[in-house]
């Protein structure tokens, strides 16, 4: 009996030793990248990068942007990954305050428009941007001979009663972006505006999926509302994923008069990570033309690298957002929770 026990102990020891050994041997070659759930990349692009740099990249989708960041902050001392991608300008301050990133001034930054480089300490480097705008059902507006609203104020008119679905900013990043657009436009009076929207029976749901697939009339969910808060890039995506080839998108975005909010997403090297060299290479890669050109059709966002070409689909079907709303990221950080709480209170 005792012998047997010893034997199993011995085996266990051997196993754990082998496990340690193997993990030691492979560790310098593996890079772990924490991302939000919407991250995507082409198989051949990442395979080529891995081959060229003799490393394995493991991606860890960790929930939406907010959940991912909170997990990263919680695990700060023993990080789950070496690189974190997907913090946007609404969360940037929290990431910087929690001090989860090491600075890295990538040489590729020279190819990137200065307007996107928000963090001058180079801890968070811009990767992509996108605009959160109201999308509308073209057919509905044409059939009902209803003009498409052009301003925030239009949305409070009786003809648009109960036609708009938005997301709860407390549970959704698009919802938060839209809230911030109204804050940027109306200043401190934004809650007054939301009360008017509420009067006009705006529909609030928990997240993008419900809003788009359950409430929005132009999606396959065939819901009741012909307007939804989504992205400026959603119309081309409708074309890409249409069951039958389409010449024209069934939806369009309202891109005028500051009604869109610009989200910029950042990448950073996590403090206390184990593979600084590999991490730097990966960050360079994310900023490079190759990745930046692969990104739009995978994540439906726009490249920040000026040398990157947009795909044909975007050129044909995406609308240009001329004057998106923005707010300084530190102002967002200082007020976001208070704004959301106030919004929740106002919409009750």
């Amino acid at each position, binding site marked *: 009996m005792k012998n047997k026990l010893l034997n199993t102990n011995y085996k266990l020891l051997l196993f754990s030793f082998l496990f340690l050994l193997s993990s030691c041997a492979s560790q310098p070659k593996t890079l*772990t990248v924490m991302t939000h*759930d919407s991250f*995507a*990349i*082409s*198989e*051949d692009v*990442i395979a080529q990068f891995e081959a060229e740099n003799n490393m394995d990249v*493991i*991606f*860890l*989708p*960790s*929930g939406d942007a*907010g959940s991912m960041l*909170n*997990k990263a902050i919680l*695990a700060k001392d*023993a990080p*789950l990954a070496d690189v974190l991608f997907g913090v946007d300008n609404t969360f940037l301050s*929290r990431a910087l305050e929690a001090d989860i990133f090491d600075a890295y001034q990538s040489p590729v930054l020279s190819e990137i428009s200065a307007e996107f480089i928000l963090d001058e300490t180079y801890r968070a480097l811009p990767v992509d941007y996108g605009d959160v705008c109201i999308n509308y059902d073209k*057919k509905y507006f*044409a*059939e009902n001979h209803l003009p498409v609203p052009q301003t925030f104020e239009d949305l409070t008119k009786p003809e648009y009663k*109960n036609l708009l679905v938005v997301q*709860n900013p*407390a*549970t959704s990043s698009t919802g938060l972006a839209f809230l911030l657009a109204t804050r940027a436009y109306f200043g401190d009076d934004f809650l007054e505006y939301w009360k008017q929207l509420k009067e006009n029976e705006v*529909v*609030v*749901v*928990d997240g*993008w*999926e*419900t809003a788009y*697939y*359950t409430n929005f009339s132009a*999606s*396959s*969910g*065939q*819901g009741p509302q012909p307007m939804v808060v*989504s992205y400026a890039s959603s119309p081309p*995506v409708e074309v890409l*994923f*249409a*069951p*039958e080839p*389409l*010449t*024209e998108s*069934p939806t369009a975005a309202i891109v005028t008069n500051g009604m869109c909010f610009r989200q910029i997403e950042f990448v950073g090297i996590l403090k206390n990570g184990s593979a600084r060299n590999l991490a730097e290479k990966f960050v360079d890669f994310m900023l490079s033309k190759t990745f930046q050109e692969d990104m739009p*059709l*995978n994540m*439906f966002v726009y490249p920040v690298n000026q040398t990157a070409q947009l795909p044909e689909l975007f050129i044909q079907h995406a609308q240009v957002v001329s004057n998106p709303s923005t707010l300084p990221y530190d102002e967002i950080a200082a007020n976001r*929770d208070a704004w959301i*709480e106030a919004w*929740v209170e106002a*919409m*009750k």
Partner: protein
Amino acid sequence: MIKKQVAIDSKNIPANVRFFLWLPAFLFLLAFFFYPLTKIFSLTFDFSTLTNENNLRIAFHALRFTFYQATLSTILTFILGVPSAVLFSRFTFRGKSLLRAITAVPFMLPTVVVAAAFNSLLGSRGLISSLFPLSSAPSPTFHFLLILLAHVFYNTTIVIRIVGNALSRLDPKLEASARVLGANTFNLWRKMIFPLLRPALLASALLVFMFNFTSFGVILLLGGSNFSTLEVEIYVRALQLPNLNLAALLSIIQLFFTLIFSILYTRTINQVNTQSPPSFSPPQKPKTFKERIFVATLCLLLSTFFILPLLSLPIRSLTRLEADRAQRGEIQYGFTTDYYKELFINRRNSLFYVPPFQAAINSLTYAGVTVLFSLALGYPVAAALAKPTKLDNFLDPLLLLPLGSSAVMLGLGFILSFGRLISSPLFVPIAHTIIALPFVIRTLQPAIKSIPDKLRQAASTLGASPLKIWQTIDFPILSRATLTAATFAFTISLGEFGAALLINRPEYPTIPIAIQRFLSQPGGLNYGQAMAMATLLMFLTTASILFIEKTRLNQSGEL
């Protein structure tokens, strides 16, 4: 000699054996449940939270709404569940086992799928609203009704199982003699059947209440923005509007109530089990006119309530709604298999493309490992609980605690406790096992207990070896219960309970993850593929549950 040994074995398990029976499950829960929770609470819980008025107000509101909706949901579930329990335990009719299986399917489906099913039925272009056009604006009341309906949809099966089993174990002689003595149906139920059923009614009410109490996905997906239960509030405060102190306070409140319900539940369910198994009243064909009406009405009601939403998924996955956007006019409906074909195409050459077979195989593998884990851990505990001591009865409710702990907080605890290890694929079946374990133990325990000692003793007196006894008496009973327990663990894992716990590895996608990925992007193809995947999951689940039904032990009060 043998005789003596058998007698000892069955009457009283020695303390040291008991210790080893509990050890694996105890260590498992310690490592993967209590330790991570302690870790996250010790970091985030702060007594100053208790003096913050705003926090207390939020906690009070959430608690009040949680109790309110759970009470209403439980009452509604009983209104449908108790007659259904009578239907299934007293009558036979064509399609009975299928209908019974179908009532159990929702319990195992992920919320995303159930929400999609409800929406494709009750949404503005769904079947119901095209028959009965409602006013355009869905009011908060409408959302609240949706929540309650979804809860009934999920939990009716619990009442059917527990109350139905107790009903079929009532001694038919009692009823017959009461009738002879002149009792009418009303008095019979009021004075005799209901009092006898009370433990079963109470136990099922507690379990249903507990599930409604910790409801999360249903509230979030169907409730709009106006409703938040404790679990929803914990999620918001832990991850979205970070206030981990408040999140910790809320989860402690939730755990506290879960513990109370668990203690009450284990007490009452044990009363159900200890009732002596009398002679059986086998279900019969409805004879009188009244009985026929009862059976027909209820069958129709149950079919409508359960089959319509479930059927809407496969229908939706095979229908093209918009034939041509450019041509304005009525929506055209058309049959298509495109969504299923599209599942096999990696259109964007994406690294995160989920091949459907791979997703199915991954889901099945995780489910298989979950079965192994939960049986290995659950068997010994069930054996100990079959002949419980005071200590066993004390530990019993703790096994149910994982059902009421916040997945979000446990997930954060995992991160703190295990660091990079949690991205190991092994953590998926581990997380599923935490949830599956109580079900497995609850299924095995009554079966082990039901093995009559007298049979064993008789066999050994007649000279059967212990092996022979095990082979001819224990095994036939336990094999069926084991199969049932295994299928429970299997479907729980398939439906990915507690998926929010984890960081998912894109290399090992599962069906629920694939559904989620499709639903997170615009485009008709994505929606269609999500429905196709959901249909696939539904069929896997239904097949598993039909399997449970076929092998179900008639005598045991499972769950």
